């Protein structure tokens, strides 16, 4: 029996921006993918070849394994490629006429008709030319940074930016550090660690923790979920390893997340976005009991007395006692004291994994800074005392971000990358968090370029949109769109997309999901399995590898890659002459895909001696050896710990700053992000988002909205194999697969809600529906719903209703704080009630009659298209 006739290799992570992980072997038969499986390094390499590594501690050994440790998402990708929701051909909104009425008010409502690529690209080129001539190029707004697949030659993120840039310019969306806002906007001001704000000195930290730490605090951190989309399952194996060698795992979060449920030795439930109160109370115990490292602070810190003054209540008359904190965070005072004393008397590091309500709620810069303060009080950098991440082990190409044994170099894809480079922005740009206001025509201003590659000092520079003389947004060109489902207040964006000033909304995407249904033209895009490309695997925590990605299967429908789609537009622009003359040549450099791939390899930083294109093509991948002598490289922040004068942090004083003079000078009078981190009960940006306020009487729960367990943001929501798992979807009495809402039994009883009921999460920004999942895995007072469920709009815009459960629709539109443009996508107030399903059905019958919807795969593109004559 033939079980495959073609085997190829792919980088299956969804890191985007060209970075990659999760090398996967793909078997195909008769042009279709039949299986996806781990790659086995021992197919081509011995352990000696790879300088195979071991971490030895306490008589035990941890090793990387000789096969890839893919996330389960790698093995279900063919359901994405062959999804019934794949858009098969270009679509045009039926009542959008570029030569007549455009009906922007009907976006999200009206249906689509089939057009050809030729027709679509004619229209697109004409619109670009018209808008450019009428309003100027800065009125074309490119969103090229959504969550999606990783590609290089076919670069799914921002391929259009290059074409627009080389033919006259654009306004670009600036993607902010959306998964870890607080570190960027807060922690950098306390300890530098440029440009991310998280510990960028992570070398050898897993070895260091294994050897020296008594405990790891997993603070709002789920190593069993968040790494899946980016790096696979080495993080999971590390948690088992810490259990094996007796490193105590304490989880601090409102929810018993998937790592907590399996690995934890202890769970300390804390209400969403109240960690700052808990942290201040820990500091209070240490200060009043004298159990912190005063000598270290004398030489490594600046301004501690300001913090002490605040903690003891001398500034505001409110000592930050455990009893005070209990009222805010609902961790009993006795448990706070016990934790503080345990921490002070043991060797403790903190682990993070992005996301959750700890780091992307309102004022998230405060818990981030407070964590730095606490680490400082226990002598951060000391063996066993550090901050470590279980994810993104090569973020933005930083070798020092990898806490596992590193290779000699980090392979890059820049030689063939056609996407937009994060952080490289044109003069006119819009922070992603402020897009709804900007698209709606408001004049906005903010501080900083806001992308993760900028230095702390960039946060003091002021910008505006539109710039003087510009006309604002007239056209939006988006790829991998997912603003509504992944950013702050999608309902505001739905309103903005229906404004008159948005004359043309163009989208490229493989699937009919997210805000595709608001577009005027949709271009069908191929998935990574259908494409020849070049990739790298640098996030997996085993060995770095370089991947010659051959297409695994035939194309689906009339799809093209993002790069190819933009090239088709370029071909139609060229006849307009002038700035468009030779734009095809400039864009493609007349290189074939094969030539681009070869150039990718040539420029991936691989040493000449290791370069072997024929071998790469033959094997499909090339694995790079571990660096010799890695064991002896300094661990974490040990150099700062041992000699802060010669190894300073990147703060103005070179020390850990408990008082940030830069913030004091840059934003005098800022009560939300002052020089010293505080508990911020409310402020101008978020006047009433706490359980003690007025709004909490109507919306009494704080929402946990994690990176999803069974999706990567909004990706994979159509996968039939995840949707039949009970934590993925709750089948309502109407047969619809609702996004689960975790409710503690105590709260469920008060609300009269039973397991399986259809419920509303609501506030004044709108309602999202879900399926009640009554569980002890969420603390009372908090509810949990993963973010990124498919949009299934019943009523669009502010005050609207969404059946899919895309709770980003009802997040606060306001950013982290007045002068910090981060997103707030968790830890905000919601009400919970049983849905009036019959009432909704009677009022909006057409929304409950999607003919091609199935609970197995969800919504289908066919319901958005008028029937062909």
């Amino acid at each position, binding site marked *: *029996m033939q*079980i495959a006739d073609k085997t190829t290799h792919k980088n299956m992570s969804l890191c985007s921006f060209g970075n990659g992980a999760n090398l996967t072997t793909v078997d195909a*038969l008769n042009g279709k993918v*039949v*299986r*996806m*499986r*781990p790659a086995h390094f021992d197919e081509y390499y011995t352990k000696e070849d790879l300088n195979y590594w071991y971490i030895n501690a306490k008589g035990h050994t941890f090793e990387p394994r000789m096969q890839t*440790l*893919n*996330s*389960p998402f790698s*093995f*279900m990708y*063919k359901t994405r490629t*062959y999804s019934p929701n794949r858009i098969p051909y270009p679509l045009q909104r039926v009542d959008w006429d570029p030569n007549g009425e455009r009906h922007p008010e009907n976006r999200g409502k009206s249906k689509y008709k089939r057009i050809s690529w030729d027709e679509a690209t004619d229209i697109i080129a004409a619109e670009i030319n018209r808008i450019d001539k009428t309003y100027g190029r800065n009125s074309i707004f490119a969103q090229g940074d959504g969550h999606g697949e990783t590609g290089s030659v076919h670069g799914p993120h921002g391929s259009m930016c290059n074409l627009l840039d080389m033919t006259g310019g654009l306004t670009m969306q600036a993607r902010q550090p959306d998964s870890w806002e607080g570190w960027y906007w807060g922690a950098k001001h306390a300890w530098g660690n440029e440009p991310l704000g998280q510990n960028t000195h992570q070398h050898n930290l897993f070895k260091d923790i294994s050897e020296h730490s008594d405990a790891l605090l997993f603070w709002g951190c789920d190593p*069993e979920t968040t790494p*899946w989309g980016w790096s*696979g*399952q080495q993080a*999971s*194996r590390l*948690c*088992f390893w810490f259990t094996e060698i007796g490193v105590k795992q304490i989880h601090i979060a409102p929810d*018993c997340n*998937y790592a*907590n*449920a*399996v690995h934890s030795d*202890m*769970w*300390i*439930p804390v209400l969403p976005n109240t960690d700052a109160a808990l942290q201040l109370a820990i500091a209070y115990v240490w200060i009043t009991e004298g159990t912190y490292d005063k000598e270290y602070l004398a030489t490594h810190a600046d301004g501690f007395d300001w913090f002490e003054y605040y903690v003891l209540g001398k500034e505001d008359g409110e000592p930050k006692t*455990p*009893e005070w904190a209990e009222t805010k965070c609902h961790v*009993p*005072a*006795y*448990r706070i*004291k*016990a*934790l503080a*004393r*345990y921490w002070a*008397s043991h060797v403790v590091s903190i682990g993070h994994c992005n996301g959750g309500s700890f780091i992307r709620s309102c004022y998230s810069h405060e818990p981030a800074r407070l964590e730095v303060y606490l680490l400082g009080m226990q002598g951060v950098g000391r063996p066993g005392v550090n901050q470590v991440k279980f994810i993104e082990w090569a973020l933005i190409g930083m070798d020092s971000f990898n806490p596992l044994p590193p290779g000699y170099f980090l392979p890059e894809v820049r030689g063939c990358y056609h996407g937009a480079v994060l952080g490289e922005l044109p003069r006119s740009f819009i922070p992603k968090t402020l897009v709804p206001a900007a698209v709606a025509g408001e004049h906005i201003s903010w501080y900083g370029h806001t992308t993760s590659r900028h230095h702390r000092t960039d946060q003091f520079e002021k910008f505006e949109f539109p710039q003087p003389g510009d006309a604002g947004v007239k056209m939006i060109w988006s790829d991998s769109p997912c603003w509504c489902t992944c950013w702050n207040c999608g309902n505001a964006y739905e309103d903005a997309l229906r404004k008159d000033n948005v004359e043309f909304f163009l989208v490229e995407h493989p699937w009919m999901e997210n805000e595709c249904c608001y577009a005027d033209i949709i271009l069908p895009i191929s998935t990574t399995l259908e494409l020849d490309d070049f990739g790298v695997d640098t996030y997996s925590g085993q060995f770095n590898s370089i991947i010659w990605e051959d297409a695994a299967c035939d194309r689906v429908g009339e799809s093209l890659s993002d790069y190819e789609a933009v090239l088709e537009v370029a071909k139609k622009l060229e006849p307009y002459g002038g700035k468009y003359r030779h734009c095809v040549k400039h864009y493609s450099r007349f290189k074939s895909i094969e030539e681009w791939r070869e150039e990718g390899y040539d420029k991936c930083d691989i040493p000449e001696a290791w370069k072997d294109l024929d071998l790469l093509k033959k094997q499909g991948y090339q694995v790079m050896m571990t660096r010799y002598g890695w064991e002896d490289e300094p661990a974490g922040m040990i150099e700062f710990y041992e000699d802060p004068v010669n190894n300073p942090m990147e703060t103005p004083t070179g020390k850990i700053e408990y008082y940030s003079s830069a913030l004091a000078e840059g934003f005098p009078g800022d009560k939300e992000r002052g020089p010293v981190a505080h508990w911020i009960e409310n402020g101008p940006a978020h006047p009433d988002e706490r359980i003690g306020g007025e709004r909490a009487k109507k919306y009494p729960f704080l929402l946990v909205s994690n990176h999803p367990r069974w999706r990567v943001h909004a990706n994979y929501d159509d996968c*039939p*194999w995840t*949707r*039949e*798992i*009970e*934590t993925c979807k709750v089948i309502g009495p109407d047969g619809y697969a609702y996004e689960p809402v975790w409710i*503690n039994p105590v709260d469920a009883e008060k609300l009269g809600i039973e397991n399986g009921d259809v419920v509303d999460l609501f506030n004044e920004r709108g309602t999202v529906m879900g399926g009640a999942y009554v*569980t*002890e*895995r*969420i*603390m*009372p007072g908090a509810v949990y719903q993963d973010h990124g469920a498919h949009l299934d709009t019943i009523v669009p815009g502010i005050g609207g209703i969404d059946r899919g459960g895309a709770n980003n629709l009802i997040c606060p539109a306001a950013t982290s704080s007045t002068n910090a443009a981060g997103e707030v996508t968790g830890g905000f107030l919601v009400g919970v009630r049983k849905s009036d399903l019959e009432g909704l059905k009677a009022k909006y019958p057409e929304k409950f009659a999607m003919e091609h919807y199935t609970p*197995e795969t969800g919504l289908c593109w066919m319901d958005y298209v008028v029937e062909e004559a």
Partner: protein
Amino acid sequence: MKNILFDASLCNGCYSCQFACKDEHCGNDWSPIAAPQPMTGQFWCKMEQHDRGKCPEVKVQYTLHMCGHCDNCSLLEYAPDCVYRRDDGLIIIDSEKARGRKDIMEHCNEDLLFWNEELELPQKCTGCAHLLDNGWEVPRCVEICPTQALRVVEDDELPENATNLPGQEGKGSHFFVVNIPKKWIYGCLVDREKNEVIIGATARLIDANGAEVATLATDEFGEFRFKELEDAEYEVTISADGYKDVTLAADTTQEDVVLGDIFATAA
């Protein structure tokens, strides 16, 4: 015949095994060993989750269920005309000969044998026989497991405490599970007046006959955890200097017991 061993202490609940089985069989036709599995609803390799405990002491127990290719296979016994055993021991339902044979459905556990309505065919795990015939050493579910919770082992490599799943016992099943924790009891002793946990208190576990089963001291968080307990009606008595003794019922016959935060009163 070799065995498949599921070690619950290494399972992270990622469901990769279940997905790999579907990746191999949904939409792929490996007849006559395996006709296509429907896209949803069949679980030849089935992960089950079971929440244990109450906030703030909650665990999720993952347990894998799959065909044990039993030595005494009741399917084979009942329908030797369409079910056969290979030389390597794997039990296969012939996807041609078994068409229409709904009658065999009652001869194995309902969570191991599935009826394919469209093909009118009973279906189950094949041990990925079509892959083994092409040089594979282990089935998809085992190959894919990142934590090695699932392994193929010889008889002499089976741990002593490995057991068969309920329903497969006594049939010579070759699917074994190990390290599923027995029942547990959790509590935390607190002086709510002083707002302090009580460290070093003595927690005694007493069985229905009044015999002391185990003794623990409360730890730095005031907590105690009795583990690996039988299903039984226990009592927990906690004694601390300066406080009245506290005795609480802890019945583990149905589920694990979370006594939660126990407020002691001064003696």
